């Protein structure tokens, strides 16, 4: 563990820099008392700057108003506490603010399942999820481009589960990392209940960001809605992949049926129905192959089905190259 993900302290800010430049230029022409006054003014400004920070921090850790919480977090993740006159040796990183925000948001809804831990040794905060804490922990990794967002990252594997941007009001889940981590890495060591719990935790984040602040959320394979359409990577899905599913479904004691429109239909327990179909929208333009999961309670996602049914999981993972559910390519490649 290291402080890799901590942004180095930045003291260069556009508005400030103007004044600092001027101060340096002017310094030569100023009298001694003038210099003292200027110095004192700068200190006052810097102190005020620090004071504002503490107010935002107060808000982040104490407010019960969701919009105040978001506003505080949004400001804090781009706040430069240090100035050329005052530096603060003990600081939380931007990743930490994202983590605190998530815990506070979930706590406001009584859904705080993830534990916010602080490592004294590495001076950082991290997320620990009960049941998978021996396998890894989560932090935010700041986006390197100017887009101002951060990736929720499992530190040991580097898998980025989702992208969050306060400025753009965007939350994007990453199907590849979710699959790799939850359906491959964790399957042997973590109970299904825990994985379900972790999934709920992720869904809650999306749900509250959407409901409280109107975030644009892409859940990808976690989306439990019946109207969710999961697009698979290969738009020309080879026929053999469906044949394999047909054979493996039979071995699982079920039938892969043919729907009225030629789609493949798989009926599972509790009236859960999985459909695979090629969307040939008008003008012959094909949107490629997609998967839909429906159930009477709008509770089940493709992820849930994969978690529950091992023959489907095996099939999905064996043909992942073709079947992987697409994530927003703007944030994940």
């Amino acid at each position, binding site marked *: 563990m290291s402080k890799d993900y901590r942004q180095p302290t930045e003291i260069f800010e556009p508005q400030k820099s103007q004044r600092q430049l001027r101060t340096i230029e002017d310094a030569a022409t100023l009298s001694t008392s003038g210099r003292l006054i200027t110095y004192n003014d700068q200190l006052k400004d810097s102190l005020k700057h620090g004071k504002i920070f503490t107010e935002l921090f107060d808000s982040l850790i104490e407010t019960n108003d969701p919009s105040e919480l978001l506003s505080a977090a949004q400001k804090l993740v781009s706040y430069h506490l240090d100035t050329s006159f005052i530096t603060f040796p003990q600081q939380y990183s931007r990743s930490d603010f994202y983590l605190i925000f998530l815990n506070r948001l979930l706590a406001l809804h009584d859904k705080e399942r993830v534990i916010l831990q602080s490592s004294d040794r590495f001076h950082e905060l991290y997320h620990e999820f009960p049941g998978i804490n021996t396998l890894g922990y989560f932090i935010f990794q700041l986006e390197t481009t100017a887009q101002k967002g951060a990736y929720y990252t499992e530190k040991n594997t580097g898998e980025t589960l989702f992208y969050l941007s306060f400025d753009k009001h965007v939350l994007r889940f990453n199907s590849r990392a979710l699959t790799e981590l939850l359906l491959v890495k964790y399957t042997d060591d973590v109970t299904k209940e825990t994985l379900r719990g972790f999934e709920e935790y992720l869904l809650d984040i999306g749900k509250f960001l959407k409901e409280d602040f109107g975030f644009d959320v892409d859940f990808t394979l976690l989306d439990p809605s019946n109207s969710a359409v999961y697009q698979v990577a290969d738009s020309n899905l080879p026929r*053999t992949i*469906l*044949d*394999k*599913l*047909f*054979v493996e479904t*039979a071995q699982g004691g079920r*039938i*892969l*049926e*043919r729907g009225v429109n030629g789609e*493949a239909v798989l009926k599972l327990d509790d009236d859960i129905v999985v459909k695979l179909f090629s969307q040939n929208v008008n003008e012959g333009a094909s949107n490629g192959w997609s998967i839909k999961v429906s159930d009477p309670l709008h509770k089940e996602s493709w992820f849930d089905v994969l978690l529950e049914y091992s023959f489907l999981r095996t099939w999905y993972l064996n043909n992942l190259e073709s079947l992987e559910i697409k994530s927003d390519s703007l944030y994940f490649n």
Partner: protein
Amino acid sequence: MTNVNQVNAQKYSLAAQQLSKTVAVKIRYLQTLAQAVENKNDRLVYQLIDGQRYSEKVMQSKHSTADTKNESLVDDISDTISQYLSGNLLAYLHETYPFFYFEQVKKGLFQFYFGNWWDRKLFGSLDVLRVSFEFDKAEYEKLRRAFALDAENKRLNTDKIASLSDQADQLQALIDSQGQRDTEKEKVRLQLKKNAQEKVMPWEAAKLRDAKQQLVEHLSELTEQDEKAQTAYRLIKENEDQVLALSKEDTLIGYEKQSIIAKFGSFENFEARNKTLYRDYIADLIATKGRVNINE
């Protein structure tokens, strides 16, 4: 003169009478048919369009009451009759053969699939007028053989899949043993080199030549295996595809068998029912008063 005229007139009126009578018979036939259709009496329609089949199958009588000449009157509208009769027949088949899924090809002509599962097979077509299935010969034969193989506890493609798996294992072994072969080749080459440098007594020359020959043969054998190993990956992939296709067929036939057993108990019963389908259907029409129709 008058006599001749009278005779001619008599002949003429006789001919006219005969013609009227014949035409009237035909009209009566067509009227009966029209009436049967109007009354939704499908049973009677079947009897009218093919009396011979009707008496043979239903009355089980050898004496045909066929009226083939009149029946030929409607030959050119068989598709229209077929279309009409298909309504009730398909409803009946839906109950008795729930695993056949019918699809109209054109007027009065239907084909059917076995099952509603993925990539189900087109299994044959329906002769509505004769109330009989015309099964796809190849598919029907596969199904029949699959049932026969039950006794051996095998599926249709069990043996083929086993032999393909063996091939795949051999191919894999060929790939896996590459390192071993490389070492072996090196050894043989060294031995050949050694032999070439060895000086022997003339009477031993023949023995040495033999040994060399053997080594050369062994080397070419190994090289041959190397070449095979190079194509093995592609062959294994092809092999996998074949196994998949065969497993898929076994799965399809498995569902077909299950469907037949669920409905008929055995393949023999299924075949027996197919044979008596015409008779059973007519009996059902009588029992249900023409199914949809109650004004017989």
